[in-house]
């Protein structure tokens, strides 16, 4: 059985069983390793991707449920050569230390800004409340999201 998934605008195939968490398929079948494992239990947010524009935890989402969905990962947001405004803002604020939480935070922030481009600081903090960071990059990430909210938007 081959499953087809639309990831970052490209349709890809995986031989994974339908109950396989999306996280392992992204990382191991598609080499999209920007999506991270932190807990496997929905507690940390490191594995967050957007599914049809909504943040979802890839560690808890079976691929079988996603065959008709559009999946966006941190790699699909932009690249070093063509960064998304959120990525550019994260660089401008130097908003990462180890960088493990960063991808999940940025894709969750994209969902927030798409919905609410003028999100306030407290709205940003609330939107990212379930995203853990051990290095203490929180305030820089918040500043980056606010900065991106002010930047010209691109989808």
């Amino acid at each position, binding site marked *: 059985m081959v499953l087809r998934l639309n990831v970052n605008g490209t349709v890809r195939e995986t031989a994974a069983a339908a109950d396989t968490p999306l996280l392992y398929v992204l990382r191991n079948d598609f080499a999209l390793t920007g999506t991270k*494992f932190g*807990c496997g239990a929905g507690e940390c947010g490191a594995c967050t991707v957007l599914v049809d524009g909504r943040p979802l935890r890839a560690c808890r989402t079976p691929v079988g449920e996603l065959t008709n969905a559009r999946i966006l990962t*941190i*790699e699909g947001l932009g690249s070093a050569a063509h*960064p998304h405004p959120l990525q550019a803002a*994260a660089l401008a604020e130097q908003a990462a230390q*180890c960088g493990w939480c960063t991808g999940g935070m940025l894709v969750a922030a994209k969902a927030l800004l798409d919905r609410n481009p003028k999100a306030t600081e407290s709205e940003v903090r609330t939107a990212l409340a379930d995203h853990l*960071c051990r290095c203490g990059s929180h305030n820089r990430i918040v500043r980056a999201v606010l900065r991106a909210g002010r930047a010209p938007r691109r989808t």
Partner: protein
Amino acid sequence: MRASISRRAVLAGAGGLVVGFMLTPAIAAEPEPTAAPVAADDIAADQTGSPPHDAWLRIGPDGRATLFTGKVELGHGLLTALAQIAAEELDLPVDHVTVISGDTERVPNEGATTGSRSIETTGAALRQAGATLRALLVDRAAERLDVPADRLTVRDGVVTAPDGRSLAYAALAADAAPRSTAPRRADAPAVRPKPAAERRIVGTAVPRRDLPAKVTGAARFVQDIAPDGLLYGRVVRPPRYGAVLDTVDADAVKDLPRIVVLVRDGSFLGVLAEREEQAVQARAALRRATTWSGGTTLPAPDRLWEHLRTAPAQTHVIDQRGDDVASAPAGAVALTASYRKPYVAHAAIAPPAAVAVFDDGFLTVWTASQDVFALREALGAALHMPASDIRCIHAETGGSFGQDGADDAALDAALLARAVPGRPVRLQWERDETFAWSPFGPAMMVDLAGQVGRDGRIATWSHTVWSNTHAMRPGEADEPNLLAAWQLDGTAEAAPPRTAPATAGGGAERNAVPPYDLPRRRIVEHRVLDMPLRVSALRSLGAFANVFAGESFMDELARAAGADPLAFRLAHLSDVHARAVLEAAARRAGWPGRRGGNRPGLGIGFARYRDDGAHVAAVAEVAVDRRSGAVRVARVVIAVDAGTIVNPDGAAAQIEGGVIQATSWTLREAVRFDATGITSRSFADYPILTMPEVPSVDVVLIDRPEAPSRGVGEAALGPTAAAIANAVAAATGARIRELPLTPARVLGALAASPSQSTPEKRRRG
């Protein structure tokens, strides 16, 4: 897969000019580290035996520089800062400096990346090495251009004579072979690093070189390394410390698809699969299909402090000044207090992991270890193979705060890889395993006693700390202190720490000596030898608890003396840098805060990290909900004097991170356990500070470009904890001496001290 790079080829084959340099143990003692051209045989010696050099710096035939260092990136921006230092001294653009880091086949053995020491030691030595290499290049240019060296200028790797003729580093280095590098002429003037006024790169906020990949998902962490033919590994841990594996029902996994191999060796049990999710499933199935016996009984949590006080210990007097600290001057007020800090978890968001492959008996391991050379030795001992047949290559993980499971994962991966020669294996820990089996920062208890005379000065001070060692890294313990090694030999017990002679050490004593002018003081460490929970280094080691205790007690003495906590500290401080950070933090924070009404509490904490490191003063502003007992830290102002700041934004980020992590430890964190083992095994059981709860952090950097650099990664933690505890006391009158400052403890302290609810007003108003 076998490492094919010959050691000498790394440097010699590429040509160019190389200098090797030494780290100096204490900067203050020897302000000028040595740097000299590398002799051919030194290169091999640097990676084995006793190294003539700790690191190398090369100018290649392309005119670019490469730094070969054993220090590694922990997500703290170190490699960016080192590149800045090299570029500064070489007069090169910073992006013309490549850093090769943490690979036992490619760099010299430079020791661990720990203790906020890297910028202090490697940075200082690199500065000298860069200056030496630049001088060698300028000498060559002087010869070729026939112009005295002191008339030449260098900019962006081009040496220019007054008449406009120039030679690029590329041309100067192209024909040089490191084996034939002559030392500088004996009559050449001594090489000095650049004076502060001439610096153009050090002291500027160069962006971190690792961040573009990290914000785009392109970074390759150790957990992302995927050589062709990769197998995925998981390990089945015992249910508790010390348990021994009795039986495994292999049938439990026989129906699972594509399980490649089950590896059992003593009490070590692991599984390899073609797909990662299958390895995860197999682990879960095996946990149900194994039986274990025995196991260590842990002390009851409520008897932990008694256990620490009564267990066998080595006692060291760390510091003693003046006569008997117990004798009281007339009219003195005497106070005693006991402070506690629980076991704290590293709780990095990334799980420990490693990639290993055995090829022809040669083992290659990608690891997030903070010391690849010590790990190589420990792996050799555990696997009974020569360390020279092992290559350890550092790769980043998501969060390195001390000795977590990174080193353990390397042995796990190696044991699994040994079962499938030629195939690479990626081993990763699960979350419950990470919480249950990584070493913790040890629980600590600190007793303080002191007296304040009628003159308002501290007459006597005594500080007594009980703690396990904080030094259990590979290389710091008698046996290869890697988790699976205990399981292989069947003892399932941690190796004892390397038996230290009767001297201090082990980290529990860090910052136990107060930074104040105290003519009569006695500082004692009881290093508790019984280690019921697995412990090792966690960011700042014993400094966190010692500073929390000592600085809380300073406030208690100030209150007894009727003095303002800031003024009381300043009255006992002659160190001008200490005074400067305290005054800077207090000024920025608006000390002593608004008065009366429902004002938030301000609290202060100060330390000079590790006694010789950065001076740090923190002022925390807290609000305490008297009904729920919840403490909210709204803001932390933190002033830091770390000498020469290499990268102000990088330093600020480290300090912010230290403040936030310390706030989390202080308000939230305690490892939970019962008699049978660790019970906090998830982020739900072990909550850390979240985005809405994080304080704003206001960093005040005091740059002293003429002074040596001091590391900042660990310096903020103790002062932050003390500032928060002191702020809670200022806001409520409730003094809490046990971390974390949970709502239950706050309510308990409020109930116990209703009459003390307004001491600040009496003192200040």
